């Protein structure tokens, strides 16, 4: 039997198309428990590769023959070794090229919907990390919101669409992943915006993203308007796009809300978070479709792979929007928070321009789930 090589894009199809897959993850147990490839219909077996050096006979029984089987490790070396052993034992299996490292980096662009006058809105789903970036396209121009660090994905996409990137926004200073925003702006001549309250320590030039700031994409009517919505960070800003979509950054997710502690000021910011979620957002139209900067669990994906839900539905379904008692809310978002994202303090330093790690170092810093939410 031969061993097939799958790319991260192949795995993404299985996630989005709801297919069944059996994953043999050969990383060590801690790494697997911390973070794995999530799919609606995926099954898992975690056996560290170093337990299989003497052979795979003992685990053959646990590996199905009626499913696609994918062997996964951190980079790919160990998964190739184990996949080859399984092939020698007569099994038909594949390994993931580039391993979890490649999975963490993969972005799938999905169209969310059409905008006025032929405009389009795309969501870039980083399945392995749960990051969501956006591109608004209209009449030959584009705006990008919360770009991750793989700048060429966005610049190439814009090229394919024949549009010029004019505006690049970050809703806040990210702590879980490295922003590609200012690099895209540098490469394309676009304007880079950051909320000034999050940018007090940054060492590069930026255009202040202030409340009510509005830019037009293309010459027609598509507006991207800023709405100051602090709480995850003190500068966090949302966007209303074309009167249809609400880009919430890390303030409001589909099944959770933003955590206020990643800049070390949970107690100070919990009031802002409450104000944003329970007053500012309540004043917005229920028909707006919420597009967050993250998802946490695979159940938050819609059938087409997008992460999007009506604001009115979230007011009913999202637990974090339904805690009437302020004291209970305060406790929920300050006590017993999940662990913080990997290397979050260093990532903030990178996003401020204070340190410039190598590409490999950046990959290492971003390993693991994003953990920006309180559920």
């Amino acid at each position, binding site marked *: 039997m031969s061993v097939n090589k799958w790319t991260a894009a192949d795995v993404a199809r299985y996630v989005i198309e709801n297919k069944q897959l059996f994953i043999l993850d050969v990383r*060590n*147990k*801690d*790494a697997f428990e911390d973070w794995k490839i999530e799919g609606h219909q995926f099954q898992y077996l975690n056996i*560290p*590769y*170093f*337990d299989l*050096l003497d052979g795979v006979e003992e685990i053959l029984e646990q590996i199905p023959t009626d499913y696609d089987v994918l062997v996964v*490790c*951190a*980079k790919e*070396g*160990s998964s190739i*070794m184990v996949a080859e052993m399984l092939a020698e034992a007569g099994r038909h299996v594949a390994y993931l090229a580039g391993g979890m490292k490649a999975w963490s980096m993969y972005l799938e662009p999905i169209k969310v919907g059409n905008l006025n006058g032929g405009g389009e809105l795309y969501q870039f789903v980083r399945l392995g990390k749960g990051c969501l970036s956006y591109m608004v396209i209209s009449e030959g121009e584009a705006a990008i919101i919360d770009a991750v660090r793989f700048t060429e994905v966005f610049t190439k996409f814009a090229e394919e669409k024949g549009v010029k990137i004019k505006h690049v926004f970050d809703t806040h200073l990210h702590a879980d992943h490295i922003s590609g925003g200012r690099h895209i702006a540098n490469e394309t001549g676009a304007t880079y915006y950051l909320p000034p309250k999050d940018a007090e320590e940054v060492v590069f030039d930026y255009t202040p993203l202030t409340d009510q700031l509005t830019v037009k994409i293309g010459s027609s009517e598509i507006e991207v308007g800023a709405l100051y919505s602090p709480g995850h960070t003190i500068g966090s800003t949302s966007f209303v796009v074309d009167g249809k979509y609400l880009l919430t950054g890390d303030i409001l997710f589909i099944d959770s809300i933003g955590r206020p502690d990643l800049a070390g000021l949970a107690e100070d910011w919990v009031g802002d978070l409450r104000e944003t979620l329970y007053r500012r957002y309540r004043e917005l139209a229920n028909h707006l479709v919420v597009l967050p900067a993250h998802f946490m669990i695979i159940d938050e994906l819609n059938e087409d792979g997008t992460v999007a839900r009506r604001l009115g539905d979230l007011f009913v379904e999202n637990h974090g929007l339904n805690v009437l008692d302020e004291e209970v809310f305060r406790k929920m978002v300050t006590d017993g928070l999940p662990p913080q994202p990997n290397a979050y303090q260093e990532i903030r330093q990178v996003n401020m321009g204070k340190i410039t790690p190598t590409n490999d170092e950046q990959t*290492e810093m971003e390993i693991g789930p994003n953990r920006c939410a309180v559920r």
Partner: protein
Amino acid sequence: MMIITKTLDAKGLACPMPIIRTKKAIDTINSGEVLEVLVTDKGALNDFKAWAAAGGHSIVEQKEEAGVLYFYIQKA
């Protein structure tokens, strides 16, 4: 002062080779003796801990110098 029975240079090798070589090397020393392993693959850090724990070996010392990880593994 720790007595090193054997040294394995696994610098430049990518996963899974450092562990494979280490396993072979540990098979050649006696219980209680110490194997020194030099690795540059950063992924080795957690893998060595987990591998040693699974086999009952103890990592009596580990350090990093000039981008090289040093593990001192006492055989079970």
